[in-house]
């Protein structure tokens, strides 16, 4: 990366915008929104602020070419804001990011997205992005237009004015005017993106106004700003040989022993003595990294894989958490019931990942044969394209959902009024392409997601079974009411028995029949009580959280 000159970088991306999410006019709007919101969320989290984001998207007129509209995309946050110098860099330069290779679960990683949005605005409307910023403790805000000097990969600021930003403590507001088209719902829809983002960010308060749709506000359900875990040193088992050699080159002047102990997590004196038992010599350990030959590297590398190191620290992986997910999923609509699972961190493909799953049944009349809605997330960013080849989709299809009471035809997504949300978080997610739309479907990752889905499926099954039992109970009660009188009447007709005998039989019959329903009722009652208990418990935890962790 370092070797690429800045100028060629900007020109390259300007020519290849389709690679980074601008392949169609509808996608252009979504990507512009997405990059802005992702940045706001990242910036807020970084600063420990509970994000409050306002989105407004409007049709301003006709676009510069046929069949496209002129769309304004405005995103405002309550984050730390940016100063002038950084604004030029962030919006006008490619590959300028504070997050490079830091091994963190942040949304942005490469410093491409928002600059691409500026490029798109400039290419289609001959104007870059309009940015307003207010830094903490500064009395005044300022706004400025950032244009991009594509030849030199440099941001150029214009029309800077300072102004008084009413009732705003701090934050950043970006306004793009771009060629595009608005799609609200469905796979690539803006609402799908915003709702999905809210789901995996329980601490997010989101307001949005899209075209002439009514204004909507999604309240936060958690006041806990996720602490983005400190970037972690790589676990020795997260590297391939090439990565290992490159990693070593950053520590060229250290001794091997020092390198192993400081450049990796989980390598201790004890693990080094274990490696010694397997043939690592003291001499080699004392050598500087720079002076070690390739053959020795290979040897050291293979030795690393003979040692059982503890699992990578889960601290470097950020999870939404089952409780928060449970709260958050209720913001998706009228939810009948749901189940959530947060898996323990797991090493897949040499990287630690956490998989989380939320399955919810919506209380809507949806045709049974309609497929479920699958929401995919990578580092808490919704993935909206290329569903078929994504690891998450592959995992969902590989599970036999019929075993959990859903309908499904073989090897495809299940059916019914359900939302399946699957979130994969990892400091190093491997995407299939630069626009980060699908997670690479490696066998290990697919299997890990599958396990999470199956656990969640088990929980779901309990709900579905309970529901079936309720229906059974109702049917049974109806049966008794309907048939018992007839049965008694017919016995009377056939035998001509005395009234006393008939009355006794009637009592007996009701006693026998209600035995079944009493049993079923008791089982249901127990289940209901458990749910109540759980709710009470969750409720008290939530109040506890607001009292102590309010921002």
């Amino acid at each position: 990366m370092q070797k690429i000159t800045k100028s060629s970088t900007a020109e390259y991306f300007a020519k290849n915008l389709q690679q980074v999410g601008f392949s169609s006019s509808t996608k252009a709007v979504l990507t512009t929104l997405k990059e802005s919101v992702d940045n706001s969320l990242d910036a807020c989290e970084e600063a420990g602020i509970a994000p409050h984001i306002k989105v407004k998207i409007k049709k301003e007129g006709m676009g510069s070419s046929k069949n496209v509209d002129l769309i304004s995309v405005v995103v405002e946050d309550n984050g730390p804001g940016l100063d002038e110098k950084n604004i030029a860099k962030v919006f006008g330069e490619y590959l300028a990011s504070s997050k490079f290779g830091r091994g963190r679960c942040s949304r942005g990683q490469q410093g491409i997205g928002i600059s691409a949005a500026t490029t798109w605005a400039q290419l289609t409307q001959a104007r870059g992005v309009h940015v307003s910023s207010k830094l903490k403790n500064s009395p005044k805000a300022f706004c400025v237009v950032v244009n991009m000097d594509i030849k030199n990969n440099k941001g150029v600021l214009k029309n800077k004015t300072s102004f008084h930003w009413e009732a705003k403590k701090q934050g950043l507001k970006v306004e793009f005017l771009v060629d595009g088209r608005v799609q609200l719902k469905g796979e690539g829809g803006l609402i799908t993106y915003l709702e999905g983002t809210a789901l995996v960010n329980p601490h997010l308060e989101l307001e949005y106004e899209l075209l002439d749709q009514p204004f909507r506000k999604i309240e936060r359900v958690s006041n806990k700003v996720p602490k983005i875990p400190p970037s972690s040193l790589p676990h020795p088992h997260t590297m391939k040989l090439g990565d290992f050699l490159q990693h070593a080159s950053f520590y060229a002047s250290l001794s091997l022993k020092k390198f192993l102990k400081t450049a990796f997590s989980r390598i201790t004196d004890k693990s080094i003595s274990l490696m010694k038992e397997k043939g690592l010599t003291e001499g080699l350990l004392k050598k500087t990294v720079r002076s070690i030959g390739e053959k020795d590297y290979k040897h050291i590398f293979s030795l690393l894989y003979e040692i059982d190191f503890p699992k990578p620290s889960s601290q470097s992986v950020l999870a939404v958490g089952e409780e928060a997910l449970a709260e958050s999923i209720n913001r998706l609509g009228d939810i009948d019931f749901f189940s959530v699972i947060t898996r323990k961190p797991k090493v897949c493909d040499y990287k630690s990942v956490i998989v989380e799953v939320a399955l919810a049944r919506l209380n809507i009349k949806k045709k049974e044969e309609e497929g479920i809605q699958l929401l995919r997330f990578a580092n808490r960013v919704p993935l909206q394209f290329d569903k078929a080849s994504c690891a998450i989709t592959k995992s969902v299809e590989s599970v036999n959902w019929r075993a959990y009471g859903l309908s499904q035809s073989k090897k495809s997504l299940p059916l019914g009024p359900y939302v399946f949300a699957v979130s994969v978080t990892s400091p190093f997610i491997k995407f299939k392409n630069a626009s980060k739309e699908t997670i690479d479907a490696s066998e290990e990752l697919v299997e890990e997601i599958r396990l999470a889905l199956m656990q969640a499926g088990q929980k779901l099954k309990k709900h579905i079974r309970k529901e079936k039992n309720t229906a059974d109970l109702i049917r049974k009660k109806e049966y008794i009411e309907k048939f018992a009188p007839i049965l008694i009447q017919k016995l009377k007709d056939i035998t001509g028995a005395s009234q006393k005998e008939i009355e006794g039989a009637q009592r007996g019959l009701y006693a026998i029949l209600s035995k079944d329903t009493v049993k079923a009722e008791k089982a249901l009652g127990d289940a209901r009580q458990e749910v109540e208990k759980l709710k009470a418990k969750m409720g008290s935890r939530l109040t506890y959280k607001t009292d102590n962790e309010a921002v």
Partner: protein
Amino acid sequence: MKPFKEESLKKKTLKNRPKRDLLKDSQKLGKEMLKDLNQKKSPVLKAIKCSLDNSLYDSKKGYLVPKGKKVSSELNVSSVQKISRSLFLLDILLGNLKSGAVNTKRELYYISKGFMKSKTFYKPLDFEDQSDSDAIIDFICDMFEVYREEMNCFANDRGGQTYSKNLIVTEYLQKGEKAVIDLSSLGTTPFQPKNKPQQFELKAKKGRIDYCIVIESEGTANTLVSNGMTKRHNCIIVGAQGVPSNAVRGWCRTIQDQLNIPIFFYGDLDAYTLQNIYRTLKAGSASSLIRNSDFSAPNVHFLGVLPKDVEKYDLHCYEVSEKDVSESRSLKKAKDVLKNDPFFQSKKNKKLTQILKWLIKEKRRCEQQSVFSINPKNSKVLEEFLVEKIETNSYV
């Protein structure tokens, strides 16, 4: 014709069946149920399980008998509908027995519907279609081990069209009346037994009748008669019209018992005819275990078409391809029959088993009418073929 040796059978018709007082039996059942209920005990209704896995081929008696498995319905929430329905239909049937009225199953279905329509109280019992009410009627019969006919319930029985120039049938009607039918007075129009054929009295007009042939196809039976077979031969010809109905089975049994003459069956050479038609006629069926004793004719012989006829006359056959779904089903059926049907597993029926094996091996089937190809100019070809086979003992 060689004198035919037939073991003599005791006369046994439905008339000899011990009379059942179903009114009393039903009352007894009802009283027991009431008693159980008064003691808060679930009454249990038991009926013979009518299925192939509960069938045993009694080679001495010659028909399928129940092994002893019962289906029992204990009264609970799940069975309350079935039991209510059973009592409801039983009450209707008892009403018929009291008044002497008879009904078909379909009529009973509509009678039930009528009650449910006129009295909302009975509405929950409603039968969705006739198969629902039929199943209940069968359950009642299996429970009391009584024939449907004894419940005054008759099916619209097919088949049994009978032709002879030497048979007289006497039917005893109610109030001492009787009807005497001389079949020789009929032309090509058949006499057709219905309802309770076991109640008829049969005798030969002159001397003794030589034999009776039951033809699978009623049309072919009529052809034989129209072409003069009953004029030339002292025999009875019966059209089965496919799977023999209760009437056909009871009628053949009556012919066997009362006239004491050999009976032959002639039909297609395939697994369906062998099991569903011939076996049902000879030994009854699994679904009618309780009445096979009166509704089967164990002395019936399988006259053909035999594999050796196919070979001798080079009869036209149809290939049974394993690729064709419906055709391969018939092959599969032959295999299933060998595996599951106690009748074909009996040593006594080894020769029939060999025919099934031949069918499986040859993957062919031959129709009863193929004999007409032997000599297209001879209208009596089938008659001559059958008579020759009887005379040369070419049957199973």
